[in-house]
């Protein structure tokens, strides 16, 4: 019998978006050399920066059916080539390998050449993109090289599609909203408040020497 508290690693939704940045940082763990999975903060940042030139990890969500439309939800630099998780409308999650992504991107690039792709048409209101279009707009640089990518980047309609696709993803990534800008009815003046407790303006705090307040 399946235990609900035991989860397969494949399930992206188990940890939200954050997990993938950690996957990128854990590169090299598979070599079983017993090395620490991560070096210093600087090394970790370097590894992510390097990864950015190598590929991206994307989360693509299906947003409609007949015709099928898709949206880029999240995008991270990846050290292990370019891959994507495709979340379909019925909640299924599937990993698209780099080969599959390339195939889709190249097919879409052909459609661009023949003028069938929406990517080189103006951005329409509430327009949904096909899977191939979403992938190409999200990661053209990583998936199709050379002349064709350059040609695409020079197309102003493509640029707008690319901008919109990536904007949607980045807005979904910044999940922290600022309550100060919300319509929070309970906002009030702070005239009666006091701060500076817990060592805020002095050394009054009980000052444990531990590296954490946790246990």
């Amino acid at each position, binding site marked *: 019998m399946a235990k609900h508290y035991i989860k397969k690693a494949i399930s992206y939704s188990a940890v939200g978006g954050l997990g993938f940045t950690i996957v990128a940082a854990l590169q090299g763990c598979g070599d079983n050399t017993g090395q620490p*999975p991560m070096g210093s903060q600087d090394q970790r940042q370097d590894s992510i920066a390097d990864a950015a030139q190598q590929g991206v990890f994307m989360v693509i969500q299906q947003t409609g059916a007949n015709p099928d439309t898709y949206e880029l939800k999240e995008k991270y630099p990846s050290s292990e080539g370019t891959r994507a998780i495709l979340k379909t409308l019925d909640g299924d999650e599937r990993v698209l390998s780099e080969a599959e992504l390339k195939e889709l991107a190249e097919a879409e690039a052909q459609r661009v050449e023949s003028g069938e792709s929406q990517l080189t048409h103006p951005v329409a209101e509430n327009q949904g993109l096909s899977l191939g279009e979403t992938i190409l707009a999200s990661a053209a640089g990583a998936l199709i090289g050379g002349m064709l990518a350059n040609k695409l980047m020079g197309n102003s309609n493509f640029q707008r599609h690319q901008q919109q696709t990536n904007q949607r993803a980045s807005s979904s990534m910044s999940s922290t909203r600022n309550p100060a800008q919300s319509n929070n009815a309970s906002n009030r003046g702070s005239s009666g408040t006091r701060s500076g407790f817990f060592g805020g303006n002095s050394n009054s705090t009980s000052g444990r020497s531990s590296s954490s307040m946790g246990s």
Partner: protein
Amino acid sequence: MSWHTDVDGTAYLVNELLPVTEAEAEAYYKAANTLYDMYVEAAQHVIDNDLFFELDIPFNLISLIKRSWENDDLHLYGRFDFAGGLDGLPIKLIEFNADTPTGLFETAVVQWALLKANGMDGESQFNTVYEAIQNNFRRLVTGLENDPAHFGEHYRYQNILFSSMANLPEDERTVKFLQQIASEAGFQTDFAYMGDVGFSEQEGVFKGDTRFDYWFKLFPWEDVALETDGITGILDEISRNNAGTFLNPAYTLLFQSKGILKILYELFPDSPYLLETRVEPLQGKKQVSKTMFGREGANTAIIDTMGKVLKEIPGEYGNYTKVYQEFAEFPQDGEGRSYQAGVFFAWEGCGLGFRRAWDIHDNMSKFVSHRIV
């Protein structure tokens, strides 16, 4: 990020995956759920019989503790530490870190990512920490009786402020992770260091001009009680005026105090999960002495059957009363290192991780991931 390297420079994360059978995972899950119910009974016993003194509970927190208990304030998450559970050894409760548990991020994300990074997509873990805590956040507005999935129908723009101490990056990491979970649950959230949070007895908890309905602080309640600047009284007033709710609730200090281990043993002497625990040394038994609020192994000693101290870790909690707990066997590897299981609890058991050390599991012990085989 600082959780990956200990101060001695060794890696805190171990690049190994401890194999755990589904039956072993199931046993850990059941142990956490059973013990939580026992803790609730034990806490009620302490409150009903006014046993706060036996648990070394600071007197200035008692009204906060009682009120949070009567209000049924939500316990967001905690972590049980267990001996045994692998290699046929029985699961034994070591303690319950109910107030400010560490190891959350490692258990929820890092060990999961270790599977992913090794391409083990089909492998499983006892790990639903993220969604369990997310559901608990939602229960803050849906109430404990309703399905947290109905959050949207109940949500009235309640907001949560998250705080840690400014100079503790590991704690900040943990708190910001919790903030992310709450944001994804649908809450408005913000972060402020402990020292920057504003308080008003009548109006509650503030960051700048913004008032917050809930304040999560990764700061132990027993340390709040030691502050000499009146903050304990202010928090008490805020709670009395229903101007704000604190997470974890003050009553988690009852669970956190190691004095509760003695109460549990008195109430449930036949429980297979409990080790004999008393406030005086046990006669003729190998045992561990610990202080009521020692953390991360500090002020812990292993004592043999003759009363001789075999190993001792000093610390800064020496002023608290001691309890003596029967020694339990930990699973060991070929090199003699022992493994302590940590099971996170958020409404139910929700995630397993291990700490590896030579004998006493202190803040130099290593985090070890697992996979279900």
